[in-house]
Each structure stands twice: as C-alpha cells, then as structure tokens.
C-alpha cells in the first residue's frame, strides 16, 4: 500500500493578474490513498486582462460516483469557460440579479452535462463501473457527481458562486473574517448538493459585488477557498475562520507568498493525514493591498459565524 507521505509533494501553483494573485494546492486524502482512489478534487485558475477566476470542485468519491474525479474536472473547466468573459473584460459587471440567478447556473449545469455526455459517448461505463456504482440505465450522469465553487476577482467586480459543500472565507484589510454564504443547514455530515442532483441550477448560491477600482481598501484582502476536507479538519467554524486570518497575516509579510508556497503542501498534508482523511484543496487569492503591506499591525478578528456583506446574493429554491 502506498502511504500518502510517500507521494511526491507538488509545489503550490501561483497565478497573477491585474494585481490579484492566487496560490493553489491540492493533496490527496489519506482515505483515498488507502482505497486506491485518485484525488477527487480539481482546481482550475484562469487569468485575463481584468483579473482572475479560481474554480474548485470536489468529486463525491463514493462507490456510486465512479467517475467523480472526471466530473470534478469538467466542473472546473466548465466554470472557467462560462465565467471567462468577466476577466476578459467582455462581460458587463453591472449584472442584474435575475441574470446571476438564472443564466449562469443554468449555463454551467448545461455545459457540465454536455461535457459528461460527451465523455460517456466516447467512453461508456464499463461493466465493472456499472456494477460498482449500481447506476440505473439513463442515470449515468450521477457517476460524475461533483460540487463547484468559483470566484471571479477583477478591479471592479467580485463574484462568488457555490454549489454543494466547501468553503469561501473572505478577509478584509483589517483582518476581519467572514463567510459570504451562510452554512446550508439542510446539509448535515456528508450530505451535499451536486451537479448530478435533480435541477442543480436551483441550488447554486451566488453573490456579487461591484468594487471601486479607485478604492482598493474596500476590496477583499484575502479570499480562502477550500473543499470540505479542509473545514472537516477543524474543531469548529471559528477555527476555520482563524485560518483565513492567519493566511491574511502571512500574505502581509514581505516574504508571505514564498513562505506559503513553501509550507502549504505540508500543512494540508498533515491536516488530511491526522484529521479529515479527505482530499483537501485550497486556493488563496490575495488582493493588491495584502501584497504591498510590509508588516502586521494586529487588529482584525474572526467573528465565529457567517455573515453577508451587502451585494447581490441569491440561492434559487
């Protein structure tokens, strides 16, 4: 059996655009190493002249979801494709709530399903996959079940989008931490919304904010995005929020990015091995302010609970 500690470390990836920088890393879960499954998480980062997109997906990984790693891959490429106009500067940033609520979730769902069907047409389920998943004829999409989180950041626009579990944590310039989406109380334990659920477009949660390009103090300083394997390592929500603040403080150091790049893999590796046992993916998006500060001046606090800032937020139900 291969132990997770024997797997070669992969340096965190870094992508920068228009003052924003994203550091991403993903580690396979100890439980997946034990069962011989690949890492079910996928991350995609795209940059354009206006900013960055970070998309992250967590394939469900259970025996029923025999192709969920592929489903996660389709989820992040679909999200990047659909959201790219925002960072290319070809989409209007003054976007109506109804546009956010309806068009984007529906388009993402449709494109993901098209990608899955295309994959199935090229490579149908094997007898072994069919037996393992127990999937009914016509329900093959469920074998690709995965979540989706996407973040778009430009100098004038911010978009958060989430379907299923995982976390987005925003840290402001003072180190105050909050979660843009309230915890979904209908989900407990291992339950999640999914791209393979019936009518997934109704379960997307979306929040957008117009940012003032001349006042970057009001921009998020750091945004932490993670699959649920990360939050499941922490004793409680406040401990997760503390991670947002701690990463923010690290980014404020002049050597913050190199330090994070150097240690992030080991931090995630240790967290999975000792605690959640799950795949963990993390994206740290830092704004221009966090990268130019030279020292930590203290201040800032975690509020221990989720809250919403003003903006356009929606979850169709």
């Amino acid at each position, binding site marked *: 059996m291969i132990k997770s500690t024997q797997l070669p470390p992969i340096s965190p990836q870094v992508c920068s655009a228009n003052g924003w920088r994203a550091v991403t890393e993903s580690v396979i879960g*100890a*439980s997946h190493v034990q069962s011989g499954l690949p890492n079910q998480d996928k991350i995609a980062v795209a940059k354009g002249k206006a900013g960055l997109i970070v998309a992250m997906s*967590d394939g*469900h*990984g*259970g*025996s*029923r*979801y025999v192709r969920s790693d592929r489903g996660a891959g389709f989820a992040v490429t679909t999200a990047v494709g659909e959201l790219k106009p925002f960072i290319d500067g070809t989409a209007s940033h003054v976007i109506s709530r109804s546009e956010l609520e309806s068009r984007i979730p529906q388009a993402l769902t449709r494109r993901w399903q098209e990608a899955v069907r295309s994959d199935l047409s090229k490579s149908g389920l094997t007898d072994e996959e069919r037996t393992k998943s127990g999937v009914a004829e016509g329900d093959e999409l*469920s074998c690709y*079940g995965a*979540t989706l989180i996407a973040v778009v950041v430009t100098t004038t626009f911010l978009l958060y989008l989430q379907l*299923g*579990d995982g976390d987005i944590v925003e840290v402001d310039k003072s180190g105050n931490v909050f979660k843009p989406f309230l*915890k979904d*109380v*209908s*989900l*407990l*334990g*291992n*339950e*999640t*919304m*999914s791209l*393979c*659920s*019936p*009518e997934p477009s109704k379960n997307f949660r979306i929040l957008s904010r117009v940012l003032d390009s001349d006042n970057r103090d009001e921009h998020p300083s750091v945004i932490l995005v993670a699959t*649920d394997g990360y*939050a*499941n*390592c*922490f*004793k*409680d929500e*406040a*401990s*997760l*929020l*503390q*991670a947002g603040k*701690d*990463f923010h403080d*690290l980014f404020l150091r002049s050597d913050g990015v190199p*330090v994070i790049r150097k*240690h992030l893999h080991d*931090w995630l590796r*240790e*967290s999975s091995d*000792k*605690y*959640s*046992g*799950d795949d963990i993916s993390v994206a740290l998006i830092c704004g221009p302010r966090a990268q130019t500060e030279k020292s930590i001046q203290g201040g800032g606090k975690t509020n221990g609970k989720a809250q919403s800032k003003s903006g356009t937020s929606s979850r169709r139900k």
Partner: protein
Amino acid sequence: MAAKKKAEETVQFKRPGGEMSTRPLHFIFIADCSGSMLLNAKMESLNTAVREVIPHMQRVADENPHAQILVRVLKFSDGAQWHVSQPTPIENFSWQDLDAEPTGTDMGKALMMVADQLKMPPMSDRALPPVLVLITDGQATDDVNAGLKALFGQPWGKKAVKIAIAIGEDASLSELQKFMNNPELKPLQANNPEQLLQRIKFASTVVLKSASSPASQTLSANGDARVNVPIPPPPDDADDEVDQAQMW
C-alpha cells in the same frame, strides 16, 4: 545549525487556523431491559455479545484514525435511563452488564431521550452520522410514536444510521421498521445467542465502518438523503449455525 533554523521556522510559521480534531461519531446502544429479557437468558446473551464485540469496534476505530468513535448506552424498561451517559471514546470503553427488570418496555421514552441528545448543540454539524442500535425482544408499552416523532424531529435523528435488532419472534418488527425509517433495510432478526452476537457484531463493525468513513451523498429531488450512509447487506441467515436447543 540547520536543525535549529528549521525549528525556529516551524515555530514562526505554525499551521494556519485554530484547533483541529477528528470528526466525532456517536454510537448509541439502546437496549431493552424489560422483564421478557429475563427469560431464556436473553439479557445474559446480550451482555456477552456486546462484551465480545467491543474489541472488534476498537479494531475498526484503529483502522480509521479520522473518526473519533464515542459510545453511550441507554437502557429502557419502566422508563429509560442512561447506563453510560458520557460519550466515551471506544478505546476507553468497557462493557458494564445490564440487568433486566420485571417491568414494562418504554421504548418511546428511550427514543425521546436519544432525540434530546441529538439536538444541536450538544451535537455538532461537523459530526459524522450517528449510529443508533436498538435491541429489543418485545413491543413498546408506552407511546413509541411519540418517541419516533421526537427522534425524527431532530436533523441528526432523521439522518442517523439506525439499526434494529429483534430478539426472538415477539419483537414488533413494524415498530422496528418505523425506527429504521428506510424501506431498503430490515430489522435484523436474532433467534438465538449466536445470531444475536452476529447481529450486534454486524451493527458494531460493518455498519460502524461505513459510518466512520462515508463518501459524500447527494440529496434526492425532495432534498432528502434517506440513505445517509450506504450499508452493506447483513450476512445471510443461511450462514448461521443454528443450535435449535437455544432458539428463542
């Protein structure tokens, strides 16, 4: 020198975030201690079976270090009472014999008390699905529907993994089926001490293992994940060696 530098660096750059911990998995035995359990040494058989199963549960826990298995025991006869009230890590858990009393079977009261413990708080939303194992040889003498209503009124009560073991032929399978709340799973029938041991072992090891390392489950169209944890089929009755002389 290099070691000193590394040590300094480790201190300086501690892992971001607050306290970490494995996810708790609450395992609750709900045992019938009514008068009928005095007959044919059923109570003794239950005590023997659970005592024998504990090391197997500890082995399951050892194999999955990412879950913290916490055990409690609730007994019911006239009323219900916690026999082990504190969630006890399985590695520290030892079985203390239960005694039956020549009284009633207040299963409804027992379920209400379990429901009370499944509220959030004290339960956490990051917990793994709790496992409830109900063992009885009879039918409720109190309002079992009120207990079921209380249990299913709690999110964790609804989404707990619920296994029922019917001892002998007088157990009310319909009540146990309602408790399990899943048409795909049937109460496990135990008609002699060996079968009781096998049923308790199944619930305490195979089911426990599934619950302690569950993959994500998507919700159905009505927003419900009825089978929160996929449960492997129980061993076939035909595999059991039945001692007719010990049949209940």
